[in-house]
């Protein structure tokens, strides 16, 4: 199981989903997932300015489960809570795919920036790419 959260400006949660992916031992309960990811935001903010790349690799760890992150040019943060067995390359490609999907949502004139993403098409496509990249 892999958990993704998209956080916008002002630490507003825009999207979250539990995606198919390799499991490692203990999975945190549902209500803790958001907190874990938000906890990682501080180290994420710190790491954002340390380099030039959008993919920030691992920014935090919780109970041996790493949190990886990706920051877009507009400072929308994609965060992934996953097992340590997940390959970095798969995570990187997944993040870029989610980035492409996010851009399509952002271009919709009816979508207001920093509001929750309710598009079912987006949801379906994120789940499909998670299946493609994480279940190999």
């Amino acid at each position, binding site marked *: 199981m892999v958990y993704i959260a998209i956080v916008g400006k002002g630490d507003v949660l825009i999207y979250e989903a539990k995606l198919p992916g390799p499991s490692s031992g203990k999975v945190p309960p549902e209500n803790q997932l958001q907190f874990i990811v938000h906890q990682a935001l501080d180290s994420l903010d710190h790491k954002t300015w340390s380099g030039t790349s959008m993919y920030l690799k691992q920014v935090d760890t919780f109970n041996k489960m790493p949190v990886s992150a990706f920051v877009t040019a507009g400072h929308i943060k994609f965060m992934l809570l996953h097992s340590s067995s997940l390959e970095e390359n798969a995570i990187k490609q997944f993040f870029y795919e989610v980035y492409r999907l996010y851009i*399509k*949502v952002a*271009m*919709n*004139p*009816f*979508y207001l920036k920093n509001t929750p993403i*309710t*598009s079912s*098409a987006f949801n379906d496509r994120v789940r499909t790419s998670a299946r493609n990249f994480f279940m190999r």
Partner: protein
Amino acid sequence: MSLHTKMARLGDSTFSTMEKVNSELLAMTYGALVTTLIKDFQDVKVVNTELEKMGYNIGVRLIDEFLAKTGVTQCRNLKETAHSIAKIGFKMFLGINAEVTWGADARQFSIEFKGNPLIEFVELPEKFKNLDYSNLLCGVIRGALHMVQMVVTTELRKSELKGDPVSEIYVTLKQHLAEKFKGEDD
């Protein structure tokens, strides 16, 4: 060469000579326009009417550009008019191929098209499911035909945004207008 093939060729050649603008810019400008209208009027029905009115104002001016750039002569019947709009008009202004299907009687026809550049990236939220997003195009057709002495009503029957496979504009001819000239002996 059939008339329709000639029209399609004319549409293609005119399209290639037209000055072009970035389609994403067009789509985003139109999207901003529609969302601003919704914010101002709140009511979807009113927004539909406003889009049609704007389209009408565009159409009355666009017909001159159409006639100037293509040099087509007067259409002999409604069938030719329908095909001119679909094969030449839609191609040269939007870059898309449209088809004509004939309606219930000789005064009604529909123009079907796919790949409308205005709806690129758009996803209609549930609360606006009655919004005729491309209603501007209906107004353009009505305005343009009014300037060539035809009164029509147009309706956006099907829309790719609402889940249909194609978009469809249904045109009904109401009446032909006689050319009016101002009296010379006033």
